[in-house]
């Protein structure tokens, strides 16, 4: 359908005289005296017929409006109105179509592949009728004779300028397409109708949406056709879950990725944070003050996590769920176990190991195994402390920055959330991700060293006794 219009526009030779004013009114008026009236038909021997009516208004809008009737209908003049005989309608139309070639040279027409193909068919004996595609009196004027090289160009004839669509709610939305954005997007080679399916040069369905939000939600469904993997991931996420219970403000594809200026956001770390800020502005403010957010926003640090590094981008889990909570040590360890990254900042990679070896970490580990065990016995009595419970989430601060002792003072409050009545001594039960040493935890260190020596001594001693006992027994025998 698009092609038809393109062909129409191409088929118009630059030398034609359209657009130079209205044709000799006198002649056309004379013809329209009869042909401008409904009811008259030309009959064919096979019983078929064709209306002789010509819509003056359509003609006046057509690209041939400056031509006189006789410019195409050459056999007719003021005085001559031959009664021509045709076997059928097709023969009539073929004959009439041949008149087009008087102005539109065959060689010029052949420059378009589709025309060339049609000429080949004609050579093989098939009927080729110009008006089948281009219509007759209604041949229309397209954009002042400019040639549309692509579908995009065709659409942009209207959508490059400011136009609005109106919703039932009374909201209006600009349907202007910013060409520069489109050209720079990864979709630059995707045709308009690839996304806006149902629309073409011939078809421009009129859709009425209740609100702009509903319209935008419907647009996101388009993305699924190509990006099914991401769509299905997103369908597991919390935003989709919100949408499915009627919270229409939850973002869909285009809310984060944009429409014509679509981008993957993947490498644009600052962009990611800004996107999330659109809705989560309070979290953003806190994050911006944190050791991670500060480094990102102030120095565009490549090592600190953005929102999606912890929350993922599509299958975003409910951050208050125990499922999300229990994956947090793993999430933090993605960077905090990485010696290359941690080395840059003089941070220890033991943090995750020491956590996982302690009460909370071991318990979380078991909870996950119980969940994976699949026997549905997984029902933790209470949430286990994970990294964020001590260090904070979005407000996470550098412990060395504020000092370990200061940090421990704030820790008591956090401990109290689960361990009611915890005294100020209580946070010291956690020896701060350090391996026990004589200076940082003398009691633990001494106990460890004691057993380190005692255990092998005792085992060797016992085995030695047993060996001697058996040996003596055998000797005595």
């Amino acid at each position, binding site marked *: 359908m698009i092609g038809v219009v393109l062909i129409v526009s191409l088929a118009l030779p630059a030398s034609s005289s359209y657009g130079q004013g209205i044709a000799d009114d006198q002649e056309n008026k004379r013809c329209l005296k009869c042909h401008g009236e409904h009811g008259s038909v030309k009959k064919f021997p096979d019983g078929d017929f064709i209306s002789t009516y010509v819509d003056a208004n359509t003609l006046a809008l057509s690209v041939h409006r400056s031509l006189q009737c006789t410019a195409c209908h050459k056999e007719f003049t003021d005085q001559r109105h031959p009664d021509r005989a045709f076997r059928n309608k097709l023969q009539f139309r073929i004959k009439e179509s041949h008149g087009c070639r008087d102005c539109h040279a065959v060689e010029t027409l052949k420059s378009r592949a589709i025309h060339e193909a049609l000429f080949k068919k004609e050579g093989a004996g098939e009927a080729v009728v110009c008006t089948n595609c281009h219509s007759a009196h209604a041949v229309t004027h397209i954009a002042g004779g400019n040639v549309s090289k692509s579908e995009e160009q065709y659409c942009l004839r209207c959508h490059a300028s400011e136009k609005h669509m109106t919703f039932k709610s009374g909201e209006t939305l600009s349907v202007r397409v910013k060409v520069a954005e489109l050209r720079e997007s990864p979709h630059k080679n995707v045709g308009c109708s690839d996304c806006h399916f149902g629309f073409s040069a011939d078809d421009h369905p009129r859709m009425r949406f209740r609100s702009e939000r509903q319209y935008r939600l419907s647009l996101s469904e388009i993305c699924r056709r190509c990006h099914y993997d991401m769509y299905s991931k997103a369908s597991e996420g919390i935003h989709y879950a919100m949408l499915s219970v009627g919270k229409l403000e939850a973002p869909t594809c285009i809310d984060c990725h944009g429409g014509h200026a679509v981008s993957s956001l993947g490498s644009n770390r600052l962009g990611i944070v800004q996107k999330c800020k659109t809705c989560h502005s309070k979290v953003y403010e806190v994050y911006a003050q944190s050791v991670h957010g500060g480094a990102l926003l102030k120095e565009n640090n490549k090592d600190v996590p953005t929102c999606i590094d912890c929350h993922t981008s599509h299958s975003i889990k409910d951050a208050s769920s125990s499922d999300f909570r229990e994956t947090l040590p793993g999430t933090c360890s993605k960077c905090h176990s990485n010696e290359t990254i941690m080395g840059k900042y003089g941070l220890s990679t033991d943090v995750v190991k020491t956590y996982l070896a302690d009460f909370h970490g*071991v*318990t979380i*580990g*078991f*909870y996950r*195994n*119980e969940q994976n*065990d699949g*026997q549905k*016995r*997984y029902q*933790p*009595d209470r949430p286990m402390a994970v990294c964020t419970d001590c260090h904070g989430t979005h407000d996470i601060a550098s412990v060395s920055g504020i000092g370990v002792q200061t940090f421990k003072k704030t820790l008591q409050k956090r401990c109290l959330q689960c*361990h*009611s*009545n*915890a*005294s100020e*001594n*209580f*946070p*010291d*039960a*956690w*020896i701060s991700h350090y391996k*026990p040493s004589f200076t940082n*935890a*003398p*009691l*633990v260190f001494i*106990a*460890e060293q004691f*057993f380190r020596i*005692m*255990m092998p001594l*005792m*085992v060797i001693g*016992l*085995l030695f*006794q*047993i060996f*001697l*006992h*058996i*040996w*003596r*027994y055998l*000797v005595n025998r």
Partner: protein
Amino acid sequence: MMSPEMSDERENIRRFSVYRIIEHLALILLFVVLAATGLSQKFYTLGISQSIILALGGIDTTRVLHHLAAVLFTVLTFQHILVNVIGIIFEQWDTSMLVSFKDAQDAVHNVRYYLGMAEQPARGGRYSYKEKFIYWLILLGGIQQILTGFILWFPVVTTKYLPGQFIPAAKVVHTNEAMLIFLLVGIWHIYDSMFSPEVFPLNKSIFTGYAHKSQIEQANNSGKHTG
């Protein structure tokens, strides 16, 4: 080797009362439960630990079981101490289980005997130095496990009175002591009462209450008491 029940009834000597037999059986049961639920937490990365804990119904259930067994073990330990203290003071019970300087001499003597430097093994009292060693290690170790276990079970109460560092220190002591007792029982006690050539395949006296006369004679000769 020996089979007391097949020998003449008169040659069997009563060695343990029914109370001691029940006490020992209860100790075996609690030891197995505590070791299984405790050591699987200490060595949580091992496949067998994971299997045990999952089979018991998860980590929370395992801890409940450990605590339950710990309470019973505490009761068992304190009634043992109480009964024996009362028995020794008021009933003038035999104090042969107490450690004396002779036990150290016996130990040195026995090593000399094993190495062929002495003709006869040490002639111990009612209980040999080896038996005393394991008895006191389990008793004192058990008390220590009760104390450190309490600290670990109630860290909030503990840190009301003690510095926070006691918690991780108690964990080190509790888990290592557990391993020590486990090895002691697993290597020595099992050897001594099952695999030792004199008693193989099993010294049944703690279960039947009787020891064969010849068994005691032999044990005395080899510097070793059975039971």
